[in-house]
Structures are given as C-alpha cells and as structure tokens.
C-alpha cells in the first residue's frame, strides 16, 4: 500500500495538520475539538505502532522527505530504537492529553484552550520528528519548534510566575540552541555534511585533520543538550518552569520534553561521532560525572521543597540524571537501563504531576505540609501517587526497579561500583522525600482540613491507566528490554 511507505512522514503530519484545525473547530464546538485532538493522537499512535511492527519485521527503514536523497535531502530513519522513543512520546502524549481534556477547563481561561491544543500538537509533532530525523539541521529546526511550543504551554496560563519562568526557560533554551547551531557549523566546516551517517563516515578521517573543530563541536553539543535536558548544573530553569505550568504541561515537560533532548544527545554521541572518537575523548565520562552529581543534588534539593509540584520538578532533575548516567556509562546494559528509564520515568513523573494536578483541582492545596490525611479523602489519587513514589524508589513490581537493575548491572560490568552506589542512593533519597508524603496522606491522625471537590472521572481514569502502565513496566518488561538490547547492540 502506498500510504504505508509514507508512515514516517504521516506520523509527523497528522498532529501538525490537526494543530491548526483545533482552534478553528474549538470556536464552533469545544468538545469536538478536544476529541479531534484525541483522535489524531490515537491515529498517530496506531501508525507509530504499525511502523514499529513493520520495522521490527523488515529491518530499518529510511524515508527521504520529498524524495530528496541524502546527503542533501532530509532523511528520516525508522529503526527500532528511534521508534521505541517515538511510541513512548506519542503514547504518553495521548495519555496526558486524556487528562488535559478535563483539567484544562479548570486551569486556563476558556478562550485559550483551543490554542493550547495547537501548541500541544505542535509539541508532539516536533518531538515525534526529533526521534526520527537523521539530519542535524532538521533537528535544529525541530528543537526550536519544540522549545517555542513547550515555553508557550507554560506561559499560556499568564500568571506572573508562569511568565517569568517561561521567559527564563526561553532564554536558556535559546542559548542551548545557539550552542547547538555553532556545533553544527563546526562539523559542517570539516565534513560538508549534515546527515548523521555521512557525518560519521567523514568524521572518522576528519578528526585527525581538524581535531579542534570536532572537540569543540562535541563540547558545544553537551552544553546545548545539557541545558535543554536540565543536566546538572544547567538545570536552573527547570524547577520554576515545571512547577508553575498547568499540570498537563508539567506532565509533558517533565515526562517527555527533557527526555527527548537526552535521547537526541545520545543519538548524536553514538550515531554522529565515530566510536574511535568516543573512546579517545572523555565525553561520556563528563556526562557520567555530571549525571552522578545531578542524581544527588536533584534529590537533595527536592527534599528541601515545600511546594508539591516544585518537589516533583526537582526530582525530575535527579531522574533525568539517571538517564544521562545510562548514556554516560557507555556500556550496553547501562544504556538499556537508561533508555528503559526514559519510558518508566515518563509515565511515573507524568502520573505524579497528574496526581498533584488532581489534588490542586479538587482542593487547591499545593503545600506538602497541608496534605495530612488527604489519602482518606481522595484514595484513588493518592494511590496513584503512592504507586508513582514506589516506582521512583524502585520497589519490586514497578518499572523503576528494572531500569535501576540494568543501570547497576552495567556499572558493575565495567567495574564502576561507585555508580552503583549512586543509583542506590538515589533510591534511598527518593524514599526519604516521597514516603513521608504518602504516610502523612494516609496515616496522619488529623483529617484533611480543606474542602474536597469531586475529581472528574476522566482524570481518575487517566491515573488508573498510569498505574497499570507502571506495574506492567515492572512485571512484563521482557519484550521491551529485548528490543532495546538488540537496538543498542550495534553501538558497541
């Protein structure tokens, strides 16, 4: 079938085209507009899954945009690894949108919700394309789309905090893309290519002639993606931005957006830079140490927070660092762990933000100390929060354990037990700040002091789906792990 050949393009085009229809439809019929967005995401998800199946069966697929063949045209590459990320992106977006449908009415003014849909779909489309693109410059353009739309879903709330946080995010992210563009220029200068594959071939010889250019480019890339993905110590923008945003935006930003940059850095490190360069330069070592610091500091900062969403935001810094550790350890099993953690943490943090959002929705409470006894008032929401916390800690039966298992195993395999301890202490630190909330919510003697409104069914359903995801990720991870294991095998 002709359409099947164009799946990579269609996956990007579907949300993109719906993005511009949504606000138009919203004026006439608000509900239909929401369902159209939901439907478009569902269709995208089905297409991504089909593509994944196809690629798994027939091998990687290269798609040339507009039939311009590389190295000049833009190539989209669909291999199992990228499609794994794609499916995670689309599935989580669909799930978060499910939650957003009801929650937004509460958080935003009615007339901007239609525009929120536009931004949301733009974000999804740009992230979907970022997973597949095989071209550095195209990646730059997509990163900018992603940056604008992710800033905009924060500032759309238009209160003082959001505006300031959004601006800070925008400026730092512009600095990141500036560095990235300079890095591209450095590589283009010495190779004349922008396509990943051609670059890798050229670079293995170009390193010898222009080492300085290549090294600078590598450093710039780490700074660029480090800023965008909130790698310690470039994380300063994250807590304000993620905490002040509307809850669905927080779930998207903490759940997916920071991960897509980590994933892009991973692709560039492993698919653009030749293996010999990676071995000779301490690139992964730098990432690794920054990540280890991030794990510790993210958790420690999180412990000091009084605001629930701020705490979750800081916790994201620690968790993204876990993913970076998987990349930095430069070992097959650790990489599997890191990549698996992308999916696990996307769902977990998404769900925690949703639970926090549901609490705010129903009671208006944001402070951690005010949550005493809330578990008896809102059992389902807090059950979701508990499962999310369990996955953060890595309790058996949740996805968090599996990713930590692989990370620790990978670190041990190359004899770096120190980083095993970092992974374990991250679990312990998470326990120290997540558990008191859960205990206080369920076991506190005093009853919840605030009025509790009913949480809409849609929100509850979204939380239930999240819980199921997490448990399935902890009990049946085998197919995914096998897929990831095979996908990363050729990097080593």
């Amino acid at each position, binding site marked *: 079938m002709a359409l099947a050949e164009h799946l990579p393009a269609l996956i990007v085009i579907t949300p993109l085209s719906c993005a511009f229809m949504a606000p138009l439809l919203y004026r006439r019929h608000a509900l239909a507009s929401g369902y159209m967005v939901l439907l478009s995401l569902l269709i995208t998800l089905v297409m991504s899954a089909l593509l994944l199946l196809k690629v798994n069966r027939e091998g990687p697929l290269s798609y040339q945009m507009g039939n311009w063949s590389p190295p000049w045209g833009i190539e989209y590459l669909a291999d199992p690894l990228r499609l794994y990320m794609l499916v995670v992106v689309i599935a989580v977006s669909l799930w978060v949108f499910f939650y957003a449908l009801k929650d937004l009415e509460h958080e935003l003014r009615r007339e901007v919700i239609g525009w929120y849909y536009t931004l949301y779909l733009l974000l999804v489309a740009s992230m979907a394309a970022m997973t597949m693109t095989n071209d550095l410059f195209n990646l730059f353009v997509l990163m900018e789309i992603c940056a604008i739309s992710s800033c905009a879903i924060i500032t759309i709330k238009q209160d003082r905090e959001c505006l300031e946080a959004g601006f800070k995010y925008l400026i730092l992210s512009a600095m990141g893309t500036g560095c990235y563009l300079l890095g591209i220029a450095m590589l283009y200068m010495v190779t004349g290519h922008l396509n990943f594959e051609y670059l890798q071939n050229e670079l293995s010889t170009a390193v010898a002639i222009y080492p300085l250019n290549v090294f600078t480019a590598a450093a710039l890339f780490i700074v660029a993606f480090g800023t965008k993905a909130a790698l310690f110590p470039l994380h300063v923008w994250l807590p304000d931005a993620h905490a002040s945003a509307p809850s669905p935006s927080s779930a998207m930003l903490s759940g997916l957006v920071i991960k897509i940059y980590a994933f892009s850095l991973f692709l560039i490190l492993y698919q653009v830079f030749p293996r010999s360069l990676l071995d000779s330069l301490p690139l992964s070592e730098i990432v690794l140490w920054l990540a280890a610091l991030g794990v510790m500091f993210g958790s420690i900062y999180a412990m000091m927070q009084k605001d629930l969403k701020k705490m979750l935001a800081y916790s994201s810094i620690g968790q993204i660092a876990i993913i970076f550790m998987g990349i930095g350890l430069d070992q097959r099993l650790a990489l599997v762990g890191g990549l698996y953690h992308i999916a696990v943490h996307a769902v977990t943090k998404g769900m925690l933000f949703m639970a926090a959002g549901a609490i705010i929705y129903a009671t208006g409470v944001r402070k951690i100390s005010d949550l005493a006894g809330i578990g008896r008032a809102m059992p389902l929401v807090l059950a979701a929060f508990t499962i999310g916390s369990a996955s953060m800690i890595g309790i058996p039966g949740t996805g968090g354990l*599996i990713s930590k298992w692989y990370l*620790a195993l990978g670190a041990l395999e190359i004899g770096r037990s120190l980083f095993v301890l970092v992974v374990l202490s991250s679990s312990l630190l998470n326990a120290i700040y997540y558990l008191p909330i859960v205990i206080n919510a369920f*076991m506190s003697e005093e009853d919840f002091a605030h009025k509790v409104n009913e949480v809409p069914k849609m929100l509850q359903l979204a939380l239930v789906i999240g819980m199921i995801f997490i448990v399935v990720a902890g009990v049946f991870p*085998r197919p995914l792990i096998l897929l990831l294991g095979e996908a990363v095998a050729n990097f080593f």
Partner: protein
Amino acid sequence: MAEKTVVAIQIIIVLFPIIMAPVIMYSNRISDKLRNGLSVLTAAFTFVLTMTLYPFIKNGGVVQHSLFEIIPNLEISIRLDLLSFSLASLASFVWLLATPYSLAYMSKEHACGRYYPVLIFTLGSCQGIFFAGDLFSLFVFFELMSIIAYILVIHEQTEEALKAGYKYLVMTIIGGLALFFGMIIIFELGGTVSLGVGPIIQEESVLGLVAFICFLIGFGMKAGMFPLHVWLPDAHPVAPSPASALLSGIMLKTGAYGLIRVVFFVYSFQLLHAFDWDDILAVLAVITILLGSAVALTQTDIKRRLAYSSISQMGYVLLGLSIFNTNAITGAIFHIFSHAFMKSALFLAAGSIIWKTGKRNIADLRGIGHQMPITMGCFALAALSMIGIPPLSGFLSKWTLALGALDVGMPGFVLVLLISSLLNALYYLPIIIPAFFELPGELTIKHHGDVHHEPRIKIEEAAPLMLLAIVLLASCTLFFGLTPNNIAYGLSRLTAAFLLGGGGL
C-alpha cells in the same frame, strides 16, 4: 505427588491469600462477620494446603520450577525443599492461630477493615518468600512483605507508632537496597540468581565479600541482627499484639531464612569457612545475643522486653548458622521453630493481659497470675522454655546448638549460650514470680493487718479464642520439647543434613 501438582499447590498457597486480601477488604463493607470468617478461612486453607505438601517432602522431594521470565536470565521461580517446607508450615500454623486470636483482640480496635486484608496479604507474601526459587523472587516477596507489614506496625496510628513505623520503613528500604546490590553482584559474578543451581559463588573475590556483607545487612536487618536491630524494639511493641506475635514469631525468621539460603545456596559454605567470612556472622551473632538480653533487662514495658528478647533469640539462630555442622544447623533451625512458638505465645499472652487489664508496665503485673491463671500459666511455660528449662523446646534447641558448638571445639559459644540463658532468667522470672506469688497492687494493703487472710481475686480470663491460641502455642513448646522425636525436630535434622549435603543437588 507429581511435580506439577506440587507447583500448582505452591502457587495457590502464595496467591490465594494475596487474592483474598482485596476480597476481605471488600467484604468489610458487607459485614464484619463475613470479613472475619473469610480471614480465618483463608488462613486455615493456606495451612491445610501447606500441610498437603508434607508427603512429598517426606520422600525427599525437591522442586525447582521457573514460572516466567521478567527480563532475560531473571525469572520468577518457585522452589520447594525441606527448608522451605519447614518454614512455610510453621508460618501458616502461627498465622492460623493468630488470625482467630485477632478476632477477639481486634474487637476493641479501630480500622479492622484495613487490618485483616493486610494480615492475610502478609501471609501470602511470607509464603512467597519461603517458596521463592531464586534470589530475585525472594527479594520481591521480601520487600512486599516488609512494606505491607508497615501497615501492621503503625496500626494504632499514634505518634509513637508512626515514628516507629517510619524508622522501620527507612530501615526496610535500606535493607532492600543492600539486598538489591548484593543480588546484582551475584548476578554479575555468576550470571544467575537461581537457588536451584548449587552454590553460585565458588571463588573468593572482593565483590563476593561485598555481596555477602550486603546480604548480611539486608537479611540481618530483618532478623534484628546487631547493629541493625534499632528499628525492632520500637516497631514490634507498637503493633497490635497478634501482629507483634507474627512480626516477632515469623517475619523475623524470613531474615534468618534468607541468610540460610545465602550461606548454603548462593555461596558454598566451604568457601565461607575457608576465608573466615563466617566469622563476621559469628561475631555479630554473639554481640546480638548478649546485647539483646542485656538491654531487655532494663525494659519496663512488657512488649518492649519481649521485643529485645527476640533480638537475642535470633542471635542463637545466626550463631548456629555460623557453625557448619549438623548439630549446630539443626539447633538453629529448630530454634526457629521453638522461638516461633515461644515468642508468639508470649506476645499473645501479653496481648491478652493488655486487652483485659490495659496494663503494659511490668511493675503493674504483680498478681496477674491470680486473675488470669491460664494466660499467665502459658506465659510462664513459654518464658521458662525461653530460659531453657528442660523439658521445654527452648532447652532442646539450646542443647543441640551447644552440642554443635562443642563439636567444632568452640566452648566459648557454649559459654555465651549459658550467659544468655542466665540473662533470660533474670528478665523473665521477675515477670512470672510476682505474677503468681504476689498479690495485685491494690490488694496488698490488707496484708498489714494481723489477720492473714487470702483476698479473693476474681478470675477474669481473656476471650476463649485468645486463650485457645495461647494454650495451643504454649503446649507446642511443651510437646516439642518433651518428645525429641517430634516432627519439628525431625524436620530440622533432615533439613540440616540436606543443607550440609549440598542442598539436594
């Protein structure tokens, strides 16, 4: 019995209580009676099912069966051998008695709708620990049980309970992480964590030692081993009494069980012995024994005293485990049995006293033997057994342990056992003697008169269901001590031979 049937029965034993827990939780909405009935039925059914495995075990059967793979080379599997059967039958027996006891005890407590499902769920996860066929499954159930038991610990929801519970939870998570670390090292070194492939670690290495210490931390924490016992004296007394009985009587043993598995199935004990890694265990065990007893002396709350006593008694088990010969291992395993009976009886009896009179302070218990003769009689029996008076079961286990220590020429250990028994006597007798030979505090004034007449004290016993459990447990200590050819001792001896013989491989 075919292997398939055995596996199926085991799965039911583990899953049935876990599935029943939400059912019981739901039935709470319908009626209290239904909830209570279901809880007792579940416990009874689990016990009966566990006992049906006995014929298979008696014939020396061993089952190792992999259920499904979670990630490559890491699976959930099930195992049945002498050791797992011994502990599983013991656990289900004590649960069977503690659940009906709870019916009476909990009638005065709040939040029963939460208590029973949790109680039954822990039974399932506990059986899961004993039936786990590899370290990973063991770890999963171990964590599951530990975390769910938290709800039992903080049941009263007082500030004290919450504080103790938090300590318990944090220690549990630290222990869990240590186990996780140890397990990963084993997986890295041996490529498997299965308990069915014989000793995984055959060679000495630094990582191997690190893993061994991690296991000591993880399982030792649960078993109340020094210096990781700090949570225990806080957590056990604050729980409702039937829960304390289970925490002290059974759940402590999961730690010891884990260590036995590690010593014999993960490492080869020859290796441990050759490189003196067992000495770590022995030293910690001796400190645990003496420290637990010494601190118990200073406690004034009866349940706290019992909790410290548990620490010292678990030290015996660990000590037996650090000496690799038949007598010592038999003693250790038999002590698991006898301590489960004794300590459960003691906690349940103490619970009855608290339930009936509200007295927790040991000084207030004078003359209680007149008021509650059966309860206190059982308490006395169990306490004497704890001290090691023949012909009670405590004596038999200590005797066997001492024999084991002498076999390897370690009279020092015998001395430790004797000192500890003396200490046991010092802190148990002051409870028992005043209870029977003095009069209750409010009646003593009458003594000052010249005319000496016995005041009549009304006998007020605890509820029959509670008495039943206490009497049964106390008579177990008598029965298993009186007849050295009993089933528990026989199982212990068989198990010891089985473990030293290489675990039936």
